[in-house]
């Protein structure tokens, strides 16, 4: 598990890359990745390209990130999810809460 944070050039968007298993062991790294930004200020993109697996505590972390994002919470996009991660997001109907690439 490894979390990388990249800020866009204009500073409005923050991309968080999570590699390996996205579960409770990522908690501190993931929270550290966004909490230095003021709440409600940034648009976040979570890049799941290198994420093999996601469990429900990871989904909890995504919800916290959503609370932290711009536009009163809810400005979070999830991109590059593999099939099994997409399946988990689909069962939880998280497309209602996040913009998920590869899901309507």
């Amino acid at each position, binding site marked *: 598990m490894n979390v990388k944070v990249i800020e866009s050039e204009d500073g409005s968007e923050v991309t968080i890359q999570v590699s390996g298993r996205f579960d409770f062991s990522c908690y501190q790294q993931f929270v550290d990745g966004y909490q230095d930004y003021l709440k409600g200020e940034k648009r976040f993109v979570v890049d799941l390209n290198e994420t093999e697996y996601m469990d429900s505590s990871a989904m909890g972390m995504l919800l916290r990130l959503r609370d932290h994002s711009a536009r009163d919470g809810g400005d979070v996009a999830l991109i590059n999810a593999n099939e099994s991660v997409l399946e988990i997001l689909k069962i*939880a109907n998280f497309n209602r809460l996040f913009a998920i690439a590869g899901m309507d």
Partner: protein
Amino acid sequence: MTTFSTSIKSKMPASTVTKGKALVADDKRSNRMILSAILKQIGYEVIQAENGVEAVELFQTEKPDIILIDIIMPVMDGYNAVKQIKSDPANSFTPVLFLTGMTDEQDLAKCIEVGGDDFLTKPFNRTLLTAKIHALERISILHKQVNVLYARTQQDQEMAKEVFAGAVITDNVALNAIQTLSQPAELFSGDVLLSAYSPSGDLNVMMGDFTGHGLAAALGAMPASEVFRAMTSKGYSTQQILAGINSKLLNILPTSMFLAIQFITLSKYLDYVSVCNCGMPDILFLGTDDHIIKHRAPSSEIPLGISTDIDFNECVKLVKIDLGDTILLASDGVTEALNNNKEPFTNKRLESAISERQAGKSTIDSISNALQVFCGGASQADDISLAEIPCTPEVLQAIKCDTTDNQYETKSVTDFNCSSNINRVDFNISLYGRRLSDTDPIPILINHIHEIEGLAEHRRLLFTILTELYTNSLDNGVLGLHSDIKNEMDGFSNYFTAREKRLEQLTDGYVTIAISSCTTPNGGEMIITVKDSGSGFNYSDYKCDKSDYSKLSGRGIQLLTGLCSSITYIEPGNHVEAIYSWCDS
């Protein structure tokens, strides 16, 4: 924390504190003397052994805090002694430092292999020896801290498990009929299974899976089960209960915690089920004999405790069932269970376990066996929960609806005494137009009755009576639906579709429910009058024919006749008067 005070002590001047006991094992007296001197200076009390056997014995009787041991000794060498010491089940962690004249790499590596924690070659340097002992002390302290924390966690979990069992699980119903499998990943499961009867006799079952597992996950189970039971017992609908749990969890759970649920309401007639699935694997409906999956209810909403923006009217679906069908609820720990190669069990394996069920065995047994074979003892990462609910009378609460078996004495209408006004109370509720589609008057009336007359033990029966009377007036009277539709193919779903549509378009019409209640010296009586704006219906058609209980319509009236002292329809059939009487026991 007092437990960790050793770490403070170690920083204090050596001579003033005892660090505990050190065991020195060496066959040469001179070596033992030198080592003892150094150890005493650091703050240890020293005990000495001349060979391996003595070392093992002293370890067992004296329980030293650190061991310094030579390799080559008579009777038993250091390797064998340390092997025995490290494999002693009473030994939580005692650091062992090998001191040896040997310099062969293989021999030194063997020190660690047999369980030693470090080694130092002779002739040893005093500074180096002291440094190594300090390093081992640190490891030893860490071990103790971990053990204390672990023990505390275990204790907390044990306690929580007891509270959980008492507060959440005890009140479950239909335990003999519903078969379950629960394999927590930790001592404590984040999955929760709740069951309760509504006052009308329907069965509510909820399988919930909280974020994560263990203690934190189970915290939310208490408020969830409280709302589930309170609202079920007051007769709220599936939608209302789910909305209640959702808003309660939203209020009290942190953002990152939520509850995925499978919820079913099995009608007391065993003819249809209201289902709702928020973030869980498919709810499966299995046929009687052929082990075939007849229907699936996939997740159609986000889990509870995240957002108020859930339309429960949309996501609760009605599914028609046949007598003897089975409903299978399962948490995602089942399909995601991993084997030793880190492969998941998958839906495919779950479904083939269902179809390969052997005659006379339950579906859960079959799945449980398949899981066991597949996982082959691999460690379990998530909670595994399964529940199998048979759609048979065994899951229902016995409702007494036969007049000959009625425990409450019946009286004829002429005996009725409420007109005397000695202690009579009247109340009524009228709903007009759109109010009919969005307000459920029954829980309100039940609460009134409960507050005024008590009658806790009659709550279920009164709920049934009021619901049947109200539903008849609304469906047949105001909405003009004929319950004959239910007898046709797909009748139930057609009926409910039509009902929903008409309710949505409703702009006029009314239903009035009036209750007049009074107590008598040995009990009491209640007149329930229901009027609607409809044109009435041909009630005489339903009066007889009690034998045909399997008929899909008209059972409401049969039930009412059984529960009440009298039922009187007044022409043209849009006005009914029911009398319910009770005796003080």
